[in-house]
């Protein structure tokens, strides 16, 4: 199998089969984009189907502004990335010496992911939202783990799964909390009903947690850089434009609910800011191309989260625009990184340089994308920052200052990325081939869109306004445009460029600081905590298990003691005064007493006897004593069966004993000497309490016996017991003899491979 896997790519090299699955995925995305666009342009729409009426689940979708924005983003960028992926994947698999058939594990997940994103964008039911939310996580898991031979890919996949799925549960819990209070899972209805208060705050906080983890916000951001183990198309799609956007999508979707709680909004603001700076500083220090971009993503979504934290029409509208612009630019940059890496086989910034001479088109397109991210004029990015600054100003001067710093940070790290990659001297020792044209073209397309948006922002703004309107539950107006004057927005932008340039060209101290931050994060940060927690868990697990295996598993005491304790607790928890009586002893009952004594004595004798034979015979004394007791208790049927069963049991015991090796003398265990009798005593005491307890409380209700005795002649019998056994409760008898059958079959299985004869 492994050998086959090694040889087959060689064949694939010679005759590259067209990646039909990839192209059909691309076609699906294009069709999806077209449909969404058409749907949006014709005024959206909504629909609802019952899903699980018993708990009020509905399959309700609506193509509103927010839905349209994210659906178009997902399908549009999806189409471009899929086209890129058809080429990339082939090269990737050849490079990894893996068969081309492994595409099968790739495209279905990509398409499913796109579908999930569209579903998520349009879902109107919180549980439905949760489902798509998790579906994206699942797709992401399998896509990150696509290179399953690589250990780091596997751990990264698992980390992303754990973080996103575990945090998504918060969304579900929030849904349940809201339904418990307001009786519906439907988002629009909740928006209409929810009142500010503790329930709203709790639910909002839970929703925010789910969304923030998904959007890789501090402190749950650590999974995203690790997720770069995925093939580049995945990073370009999921981890820039789509999956990470799912978090902020949810924030937008439930923003009216979040807005019911000031605390939650403030929290969003803080988390957003923290993410901007942590992500930005980390990005400054990163060496890996994709890791740098991933940190940038953390930072960029920090902007969006911050915007939602600010809230209000402007901020909410700006958030939508920001997502759009960032998605386009970041996908292009990821694809750039992939193109460079496939051409050079190198994925570290420090090992690359001067690639612009080899690939001028790519350099230009990437430049546009970087400029978009850095918010330079004539790109769509300028407006994203313009709106961002506007919202920040509305939130107050402190936030505005922080916003400028944030933008400067972006300028610095993205500038570093582009300059180090495309300018300067080529790094010696790195193979420099021109990237495949099929890998460059998608970057160019996205760059063109970014440029178009930089000139004609209107359609994008319209979409963002509609999205903002959903998030605000009120109309939103953005109207982005260029103003060549000294208004605050422009000044802030200039300040940001200036500061960013300073950071960029004061590279040495900057990167030293960045590296220190990265190191500190590595030592103390959430990643470390995650890994450490897992290690501690494993150690804990091993310890407990060791204890179980060594001491408990082989001992029935492990079951007896908790049973006894439970009984003791029950005994203590209820009033016992007057609950116990001793009862009367009359007539032949007196004879039962010595026989009970004999049974007890014989049982103890059996336990004490060293020889097995003696034990068996003592057991049969128990049996005979009990049989006699049954006879004295006026149960002749039971007495008869008891004596025959007793005899048979003795026989079977002896037969089995004779086939076993005779044991040597048992060495007394120091522990067992007192522990075993103690456990036995505990079990006995518990039984005593229980049995005495219920024997003391006979029912006053008329028992069944009178009725049974009355019906016995009706059933043609005189012996009530036999009539019960054969008629009234004949089913029990059938069951009981079947038990006997099964037991004998079991014996046959054990001694004769199941042959009964």
């Amino acid at each position, binding site marked *: 199998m492994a050998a086959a896997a090694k040889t087959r790519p060689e064949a694939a090299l010679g005759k590259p089969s067209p990646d039909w699955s990839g192209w059909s995925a691309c076609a699906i995305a294009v069709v999806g984009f077209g449909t969404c666009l058409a749907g949006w342009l014709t005024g959206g729409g909504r629909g609802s189907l019952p899903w699980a009426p018993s708990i009020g689940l509905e399959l309700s979708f609506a193509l509103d502004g927010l839905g349209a924005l994210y659906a178009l983003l997902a399908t549009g960028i999806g189409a471009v990335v899929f086209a890129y992926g058809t080429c990339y994947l082939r090269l990737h698999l050849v490079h990894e010496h893996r068969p081309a058939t492994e595409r099968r594990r790739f495209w279905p997940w990509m398409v499913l992911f796109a579908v999930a994103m569209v579903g998520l964008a349009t879902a109107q039911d919180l549980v439905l939202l949760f489902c798509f939310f998790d579906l994206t996580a699942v797709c992401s898991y399998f896509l990150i783990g696509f290179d399953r031979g690589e250990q780091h890919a596997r751990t990264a996949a698992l980390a992303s799964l754990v973080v996103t799925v575990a945090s998504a549960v918060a969304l579900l819990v929030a849904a349940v909390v809201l339904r418990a209070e307001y009786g519906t899972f439907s988002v629009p209805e909740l928006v209409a009903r929810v009142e500010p208060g503790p329930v709203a705050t709790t639910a909002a906080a839970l929703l925010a947690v789910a969304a923030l983890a998904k959007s890789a916000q501090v402190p749950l951001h650590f999974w995203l850089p690790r997720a770069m183990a995925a093939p580049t198309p995945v990073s370009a799609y999921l981890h820039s434009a789509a999956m990470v956007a799912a978090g902020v999508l949810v924030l937008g979707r439930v923003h009216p609910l979040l807005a019911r709680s000031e605390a939650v909004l403030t929290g969003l603001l803080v988390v957003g800011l923290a993410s901007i700076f942590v992500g930005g500083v980390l990005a400054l220090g990163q060496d890996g191309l994709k890791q740098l971009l991933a940190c940038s993503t953390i930072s960029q979504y920090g902007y969006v989260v911050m915007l939602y934290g600010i809230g209000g029409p402007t901020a909410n509208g700006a958030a939508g625009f920001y997502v759009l612009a960032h998605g386009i630019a970041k996908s292009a940059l990821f694809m750039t990184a992939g193109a460079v890496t496939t051409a050079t086989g190198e994925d570290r910034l420090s090992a690359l340089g001067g690639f612009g001479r080899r690939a001028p088109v790519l350099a230009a397109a990437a430049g546009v994308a970087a400029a978009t991210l850095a918010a330079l004029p004539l790109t769509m990015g300028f407006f994203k920052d313009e709106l961002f600054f506007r919202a920040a100003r509305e939130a107050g001067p402190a936030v505005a200052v922080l916003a400028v710093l944030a933008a400067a940070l972006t300028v610095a790290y993205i500038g570093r990325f582009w300059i180090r990659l495309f300018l300067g001297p080529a790094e010696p020792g790195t193979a420099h081939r021109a990237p495949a044209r099929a890998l460059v073209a998608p970057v160019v397309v996205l760059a063109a869109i970014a440029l178009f948006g930089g000139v004609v922002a209107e359609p994008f703004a319209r979409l963002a306004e509609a999205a903002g309107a959903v998030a605000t539950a009120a109309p939103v107006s953005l109207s982005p445009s260029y103003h060549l004057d000294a208004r605050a927005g422009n000044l802030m932008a200039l300040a940001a460029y200036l500061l960013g340039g300073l950071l960029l060209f004061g590279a040495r101290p900057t990167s030293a600081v960045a590296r220190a931050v990265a190191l500190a994060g590595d030592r103390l940060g959430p990643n470390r905590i995650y890994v450490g927690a897992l290690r501690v868990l494993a150690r804990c697990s091993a310890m407990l298990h060791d204890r179980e295996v060594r001491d408990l598993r*082989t001992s029935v005491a492990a079951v007896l003691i908790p049973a006894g304790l439970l009984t003791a607790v029950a005994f203590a928890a209820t009033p016992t005064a007057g609950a116990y009586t001793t009862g009367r002893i009359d007539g032949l009952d007196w004879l039962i007493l010595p026989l009970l004594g004999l049974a007890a004595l014989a049982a103890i004798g059996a336990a004490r006897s060293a020889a097995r034979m003696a034990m068996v015979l003592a057991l049969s004394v128990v049996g005979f004593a*009990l049989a006699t007791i049954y006879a004295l208790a006026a149960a002749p049927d039971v007495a008869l069966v008891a004596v025959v069963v007793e005899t048979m049991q003795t026989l079977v015991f002896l037969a089995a004993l004779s086939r076993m090796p005779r044991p040597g003398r048992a060495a007394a265990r120091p522990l067992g000497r007192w522990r075993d009798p103690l456990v036995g005593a505990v*079990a006995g005491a518990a039984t005593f309490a229980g049995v005495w307890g219920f024997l003391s409380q006979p029912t006053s209700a008329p028992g069944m016996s009178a009725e049974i*005795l009355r019906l016995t002649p009706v059933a043609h019998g005189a012996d*009530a017991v036999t009539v019960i056994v054969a008629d009234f409760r004949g089913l029990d008898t059938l069951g009981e003899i079947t*038990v006997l059958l099964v037991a004998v079959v079991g*014996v046959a299985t054990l001694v004769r491979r199941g042959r009964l004869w």
Partner: protein
Amino acid sequence: MILAYAAGAAILFGVGSYLLLQRDLVRIVAGVMLISQSAVLTLIGSSLTRGQAPIAPEPGRPVSDPLPQALSLTALVIGLATVALLLALAHRVAVVFRSERRDALAANEVEHEQELSPERQRDQDETAGPPPRPGGSR
């Protein structure tokens, strides 16, 4: 009488439990047997009425409750069945282990555990990544 039945059942149960803890497998079977007898005794003790046997009883005199007697019959049979099966099992263990002592079995279990430790390490690697090598950081 109530007290006597309860005490009798409790002693049988307690001794049976004690035997369940023994290392000799045959004694475990004996313990199960005693516990089953304790249950049957309890059933008989739970009769709601006492008197003559419920076989064509003379009218007017108290009759023993037939229902617990019928239940006891069933329980006795089930006890026999399970004891037979357990004995066969104990015998099989004795044949395979060449010992019917439980500590040998426990040792076997611990041994099996140790065999699994590399697998465990690999499991941990899947989540937490490979263990940090001294001096090597990435």
